[in-house]
């Protein structure tokens, strides 16, 4: 096995993203849609719907953070669907796997590239909304920074899962659909607690990234349990992705 050089692969991933218009369109859409939902629609999901910024009249980004897990469940698969399936389709996967490096390094490099890209996208969208709110009210910036910190962990977990899904499929669209469905299911777990019996409800809540994000970082709280949860999911996704690629290397 070769060395464990990660950064060249991360750079390669980022470069290819910035060279294609898809990343720009996705980021631009995200920067427009997320604040628009926050300003006008509010968050009409769950038992207590939250009003939009203008309707609620309070300088807080909590509604914006409520939208993040759902929107990311759609955007992250779109950004990562080609991570492995496109390599396979274009035949560059075999070339990539013949490099004298460990498979884990390639997986980690691709993960880092997509993670940085998605974090930049979230940063741009959240900051543009935060600056708007700060102009017209007294915004709690601490909560914004902690929310962004927590978003980075949420994004990491989503990217790791999506890239694993991409490694399983040879088609970008299939990878996108499976990832979105899986992340959407994760997002929706807290909505099902009412119909599940007590023990299962607690389990579902503990397994949901939405609960961990909204109950902690989105409120300005850094909770070690949330960080461990996201770290575990991320590691699980990365290891699963590595094993999936490794399996093909041996074929």
């Amino acid at each position, binding site marked *: 096995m070769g060395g464990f050089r990660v950064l060249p692969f991360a750079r390669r991933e980022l*470069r290819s993203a910035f*060279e294609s218009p898809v990343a*720009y369109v996705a980021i*631009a859409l995200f*920067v*427009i849609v997320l*604040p628009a939902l926050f*300003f006008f629609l509010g968050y009409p999901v769950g038992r207590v719907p939250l009003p939009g910024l*203008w309707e609620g*009249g*309070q*300088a807080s980004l909590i509604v914006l953070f409520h939208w993040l897990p759902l929107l990311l469940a759609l955007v992250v698969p779109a950004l990562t669907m080609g991570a492995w399936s496109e390599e396979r389709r274009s035949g560059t996967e075999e070339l990539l796997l013949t490099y004298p490096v460990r498979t884990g390094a390639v997986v980690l490099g691709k993960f880092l590239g997509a993670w940085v890209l998605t974090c930049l996208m979230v940063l*741009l*969208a959240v*900051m*543009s*909304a935060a*600056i*708007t709110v700060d*102009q*017209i*009210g*007294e*915004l*709690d910036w*601490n*909560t914004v920074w*902690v929310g962004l910190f927590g978003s980075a962990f949420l994004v990491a977990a989503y990217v790791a899962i999506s890239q694993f899904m991409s490694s399983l499929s040879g088609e970008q669209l299939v990878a996108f659909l499976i990832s979105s469905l899986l992340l959407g299911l994760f997002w929706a777990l807290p909505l*099902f*607690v*009412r119909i599940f*019996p*007590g*023990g299962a*409800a*607690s389990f*579902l*809540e*503990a*397994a949901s990234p939405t609960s961990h994000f909204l109950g*902690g970082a989105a*409120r*300005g*709280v*850094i*909770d*070690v*349990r949330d960080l*461990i949860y996201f770290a*575990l*999911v991320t*590691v*699980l996704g990365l*290891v*699963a992705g590595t*094993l999936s690629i*490794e*399996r093909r290397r*041996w*074929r």
Partner: protein
Amino acid sequence: MVDLEPVELEPGLAHPSKRALRWNAALTIVLLALIALFANLLADRHLRIRADLSEDGLNSMSDATKSIVARIEDRVTVRLFVTEDVEDGQLALRGARIRGQLEEILQLRPEAFELQTLDPTRSSEARRNADDSGFRPMRAQAAALEGGGSGEPVWLSLELAYRGRTERIPAPRPFEFETQFASALHGLLADRKPGIGWIGAAIEPSPTQDQNKARIAEASPTYRYLRSTLERRSHFTVLEGLETGRAVPDDIDVVFVVRPSGLPERTVYEIDQFVQRGGRLIVCIDDPDYNVLVGNATYSEEDLKTSAFGKLLRGWGIEVLTSKHIWDGKWKSTRAAWTGQAIVAVHSPLLITVPDEGLSDDLSPTRGVERVQFAWAHPIVPAELRPVPDGIKREDLAWSSDDSRLDEILLQLGTDSRELRNRMTYLRQKPSARHVIGAVFGGLFPSPWKEAAPPPVIGRDGRPSSSEGPVSTSVGPRSTSQVVVFGDADWLRDPWAPQGEVLAPFSASGGVVLAENLIDWLTLDEELIGLRSRAPKPRPLRDFLTEEMQKAGVFERDPFETAYEQGMRDQKSDRARQLARGKQWLTMLLPAGGALLVLGLFGAAWNLTQRSRKTRAAGEKR
């Protein structure tokens, strides 16, 4: 040389088969998932480390709770009545959250608590205990919603026992459990509840059969809501018979003197003696008082200026200008008015909603109070004009906005908003200033009766008598005291909403919180203020519409305006609405546009750099 013979590997060992690899990978992933799940559950139970970095700090334990827990001397027995196996997921989560929070509080001092968990659905003894404590089970919502049935009974209640005393939390709520628990614990640790006395205004309205009169009477000052709040958490006593020589009882810590019109001199003397003994006083002067609905004035039997109570206050360096009212052009509020035919909304500058910026930051009683509504408030004469005697310190507690003027007392305050507007136009010619509505005085208060004979008591025939009543000796200041004075009593009165059209919140607007805070502060119970003030800080957005309406000169809807006036007002308000909407869009679009511009510039720069690099590389090759 060593001859190396080729060794034949067993089939399948040369390299793993496709199926074996697939199984291997799948099993590893499942195993890892299980490990992750287990680690997550372990962390969830045993790694309760978190940092609440939000400015409001509502997600972390308050200092007040820590301080209350630190005061425990013996063990507190906490009996948690809870259904262990709950079918309804929502209630199961509620129970889990309460238990999580309870564990966190108990972890502050594990040696000070003994937790007993009882399940009334499993044990008949636990059921009997729960019944004895007056607890009732909740019903699972899901089942109730689906079949209209009652759903499964789910128990979730707490009982705290300490030194023979008990406090109960029948329905703990996850979002305020810490406050519920700490308040109950505070009640347990307190040797006794504070004693509150009441002198002056009637608490209940006078009964009447006439519907119209009843409606007007409802808008007269009554204090039932405040009384019920005080009764819940203190020993509340209406102090009667002070004029007959009865002293304020020793178990009274704070006396409310509300609309003290025509108090006999002997009553005033007993109030003074209470303060001399170190008793605390909250005085709410409202003289005369207007009926909020019809605007009629009810005059006091005696002007404060010439009354014995007024003289007592002036001796302490306190003067309330009862001949003037505060008009506040900025913090005015909408009030209901009875035109004779209907109830209409009138934007009245005499109804002042004092926001956070009009409440002192230095005094703890205003913590957690968002706003207080005053009506027809009198100003408290500033310290420069009425200096306090030596040994007394004054601090202002609440004040009007800078856009306030003083007006004469009117016999009748009409419901005609044009009249109010004309009055305001007239008053706007006078200089504006900030006027104090509430102030706190602390120190040794001089007694006018020091080493003098007490005033005569009121005899059975209603006349002063020096022979009746107990013989007492006047005392001078023995210990420091505190007197809180307001130029208004309406901030304490009952919430009132005529036919649900216009809300006149009064005590509901924050007055009761202020009153409770004042009592806790005066009885040195600042921990409860700390708990009560744990509310999200209000962070209102800039109101573009109101700003534009004010700029355009569009104010309240006038029930008497002509069709032409209405048309003009509609035109102006439409224009103001357009401008406000434009500003709103600009505020939203500028940062988003900036973000997109940054993205576009970055993309252009990146691609240009890449292209020039490629061109350079191609040139070098050539």
